[in-house]
């Protein structure tokens, strides 16, 4: 059993390490689980597992990627049955047309106006509706701020796969938001989407 001062040093070192990444971790947990209550549980479980690992070895090369990998594994273990399978999303067609439509308006910065009309919750809901492989990649990049290399470590996949999942994920997300805006009449008059 560690001496008290050793234990305190260990706790302090772990606390310092986690504090550097806690905002990204909580945002990541929110993204994994989709709600605050589960995010709290997932964050707690992640840190508990991480602390156990940290006690064994403090030589962690990439702490952020390490923490996210633990979080993802904890998430998979807990919610494995509910994991969404990679969907055969058929969104290959029509993206250019939709982008063109938004840019055909005479507004300045039409892209900002387009995305600015959504509530935060609508954006998050759309993101959560992506198949896991895309959602994870986009969230780890855009919300948690991980590098492609770190995402590759967390998701256990090659860099090229990370790159394609991010680009594909954002495109699907754009389609979903566009279609949502179209269904609810959120697109400004003059836009005539398919």
């Amino acid at each position, binding site marked *: 059993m560690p001496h008290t001062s050793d234990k305190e040093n260990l706790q302090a070192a772990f606390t310092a390490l986690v504090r550097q990444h806690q*905002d990204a971790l909580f945002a990541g947990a929110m993204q994994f689980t989709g709600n605050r209550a589960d995010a709290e549980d997932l964050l707690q479980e992640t840190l508990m597992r991480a602390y156990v690992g940290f006690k064994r070895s403090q030589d962690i090369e990439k702490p952020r990627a390490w923490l996210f990998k633990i979080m993802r594994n904890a998430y998979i273990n807990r919610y494995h049955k509910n994991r969404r399978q990679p969907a055969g999303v058929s969104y290959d067609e029509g993206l250019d047309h939709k982008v063109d439509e938004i840019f055909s308006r005479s507004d300045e910065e039409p892209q900002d106006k387009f995305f600015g009309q959504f509530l935060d919750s609508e954006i998050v809901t759309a993101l959560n509706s992506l198949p896991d492989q895309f959602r994870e990649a986009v969230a780890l990049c*855009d919300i948690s701020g991980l590098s492609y290399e770190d995402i590759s470590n967390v998701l256990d996949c090659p860099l090229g796969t990370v790159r394609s999942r991010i680009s594909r994920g954002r495109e699907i997300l754009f389609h979903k938001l566009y279609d949502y805006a179209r269904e609810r009449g959120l697109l400004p008059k003059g836009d005539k989407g398919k």
Partner: protein
Amino acid sequence: MECREAKELLHADCDGELGDAERQRLTGHVRKCRGCTAYEKMMKALKSRVRAAAAPVDLPLAEAVLERVTGVSGGGGYRGFFAKGFFRPGVFQAVAAAAVLACAVFFGISLVKPAPTMASIVVMRHLMRQEGRLVLDTHANCCKDLQEWFESHSGRPVHIPDISYPRIRVDGGTLYRHGTGNSIFLAAYSLEGQPVTVCVCTGPNITFGSGKVFTAGQRTGMIETGQGYTLISWRSGQIVNVLITPFDEAKSKEIFASIK
């Protein structure tokens, strides 16, 4: 370069993940391609919007979780049971029964005796359950007084829940559902001859307490003891906060008066 390749590279570029050579090739294509220029603007705006829409980081929450895991307290101390934001909405009666059980155990240990270690809490709890020592005598009069006071104070009837739990008999108490959706159960008991007030709060906006980490079975929570109070927090679906104080009618009324 084809547009399809350029589009994938555009994402990597806006993420700062593109090497010089690839960026040069990409720039050459985008300059000449109106479609890819629009696509680039759209995807950059999407990235920014997603980042902005992500849940705001709740640093106090992350701090609290960190404290729970390491046992290192931020030293904030007892911030006050009546503090704004303490109460938020929730599920209740089943939690209340378990809460009363936990309260009784923790009260028995942590108010009467010096602060215990986590291991001793778990062992003691187990032993007390086995021995059937957790038998609470309801202070019926106290509950009735509180109920009548609250009904006259609020002008509305209160529900007396019928809560039972193995080896514990709870005959009364006052359940109050706050307009915010928070639920508050207030009751007076005697525990081993000592009258105590137990106040259990649960709801979606309740914040986790601070103090020391305890583990009971699969649950991890926080327990904080101070002059005349014990505050216990754990999660049971939602956050549950339990305040145990020596019975004090005036204090109990103050609790209800503070949750308007």
